[in-house]
């Protein structure tokens, strides 16, 4: 996902002094180590039962065990995986043709580009409110159907918010994520897509061959990177499921916060443990995806 970019040609290879590197990288490393690393480290300690106020206490895995043996854990995990996976895949499937169309129609530098950037600036909370006002049983779409005589009333409108299939949550994520993935793809297509495809066309490749063997491999690294970022975000996000989700099953981030903010302070370490499990799942997903890519690229060279 984060392959090192090539260094600037003028300076590649020249190693600056250690002191200068430390001056450049030191502040950033300090902030990340202290507040990100520190947060994770202290979270692990607390989830293991360490209580700073109460003389420490002994470390144990009992809070993690309590989470894993909770009968609702597996449904919660599946629900979170379902929302993150389906929204990411759907957004990617829409972004791929959209990016190709935008570059082909040379629309990347027109007003269309500005319009497409709007969802990037809209907070998840606001799109959640919009979708709820649009798709809830008394929302605008239901009013439209009822006004035109297609349904009898709010009760006849299919449940799309706080529903079993999380349609409202999925649509909100897809609306937010398509522009992000599309811009990641357009950045590549604008630089090198056109020429390579023309070369393939001269060599007699069909449109499908050109897409499958030229354009798709060109886009693959950015597509994968964008999808992983989007997956990681939606797997750990709280706002949309909290606003548009059912009360049961809860997605993991909502469950984690419920425990953390419980009046019973003993539930707090369990909340932190769920937070750490979320982080672990996301990191595993990224490692898995990297492993798969390495395997498929090896197959490609073997052939």
């Amino acid at each position, binding site marked *: 996902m984060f392959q090192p970019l090539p260094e600037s040609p003028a300076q590649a290879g020249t190693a600056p002094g250690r002191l200068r590197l430390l001056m450049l990288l030191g502040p*950033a490393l300090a902030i990340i180590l202290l507040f990100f690393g520190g947060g994770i480290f202290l979270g692990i300690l607390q989830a293991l039962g360490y209580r700073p106020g109460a003389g420490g206490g002994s470390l144990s895995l009992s809070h993690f065990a309590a989470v894993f043996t909770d009968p609702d854990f597996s449904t919660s995990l599946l629900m979170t995986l379902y929302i993150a996976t389906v929204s990411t895949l759907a957004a990617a499937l829409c972004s791929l043709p959209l990016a190709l169309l935008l570059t082909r129609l040379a629309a990347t530098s027109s007003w269309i580009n500005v319009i497409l950037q709007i*969802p990037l600036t809209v907070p998840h909370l606001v799109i959640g*409110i919009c979708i709820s006002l649009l798709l809830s049983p008394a929302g605008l779409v239901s*009013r439209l159907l009822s006004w035109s005589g297609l349904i009898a009333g709010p009760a006849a409108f299919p449940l799309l918010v706080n529903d079993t299939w999380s349609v409202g949550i999925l649509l909100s994520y897809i*609306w937010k994520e398509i522009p992000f993935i599309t811009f990641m793809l*357009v*950045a590549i297509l604008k630089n090198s897509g056109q020429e390579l495809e023309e070369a393939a066309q001269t060599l007699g490749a069909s449109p499908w061959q050109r897409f499958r063997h030229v354009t798709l491999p060109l886009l693959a690294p950015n597509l994968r990177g964008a999808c992983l*970022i989007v997956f990681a975000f939606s797997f750990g996000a709280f706002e949309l499921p909290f606003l548009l989700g059912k009360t049961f099953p809860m997605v993991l981030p909502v469950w984690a916060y419920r425990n953390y903010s419980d009046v019973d302070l003993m539930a707090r370490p369990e909340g*932190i443990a769920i937070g750490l499990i979320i982080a672990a799942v996301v990191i595993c997903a990224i490692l898995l995806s990297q492993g798969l890519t390495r395997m498929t690229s090896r197959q490609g060279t073997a052939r």
Partner: protein
Amino acid sequence: MSGRRFLGLAILLLVLLPFVPLLLWSVSEQWFYPGLLPQKFGLRSWSYIFSTASSQIAGGLVQSIGLSGVTTCLSLLIGIPAGRALGLYSFAGKRLIALLLLLPVIVPPLCVSMGLHLWFIRLGLAETFFGVVLVHLSFCLPYTIFVLWGVFADYNPEFEEQARCLGAGRLQTLVRVTLPFIFPGLCLAALFSFLLSWSQYLSTLIIGGGKLLTLPILLFSLMDSGDRPVAAAVSLLFVLPALLVLLANGRLLGRQGLSGVR
């Protein structure tokens, strides 16, 4: 109709559709089902925002702008040198350092905030503006570094040497040579960082402990209270500054938009 215009209209429709109910609710005073439009239009919610609850809402707006502004400035200040080091030089341990600096992009802020909370209470940073800035910085900074790494990978530092040879001072070189070169990327990094901090809810709530009333925190409590017209109006207020930043950025970048990200 040309294909391009058709595509443009389709995108326009899909992007703006969710805002239709928001706009209608914000100017409605009475809107019973199944009315397609409000039975009674009025500016009750807007007058509530700007007079009845103006101190609270304006306070939230100022708090949010201040928080995102300070976070963005700090993350540029710290991110520029780091992006420069990653973009220009190769050195031992670069992969590991890059991984460490970018890891917070994928780990949810929820996790970090819960871990830090207790420590921040002991340090007296909980429920303070600066404490929340530090938490926001822990996940805004990686995005800034990621964008600036790409910017400096395309940057040629020889221009700086030439300027120095021609007698420019350090400050002059920075202002007249370096900054103009990296300006578009800098704007993009600032935009990312601002938007990320602007829309944070949970980390602000955990570390701010309900004392720091930013717009998202106000909006959540408004949604709970069920006053739809006011919630809709505040939502519009919440979208507006970010939209203005985007448009300003689009102007500054000569409509290049996000094409600089690699």
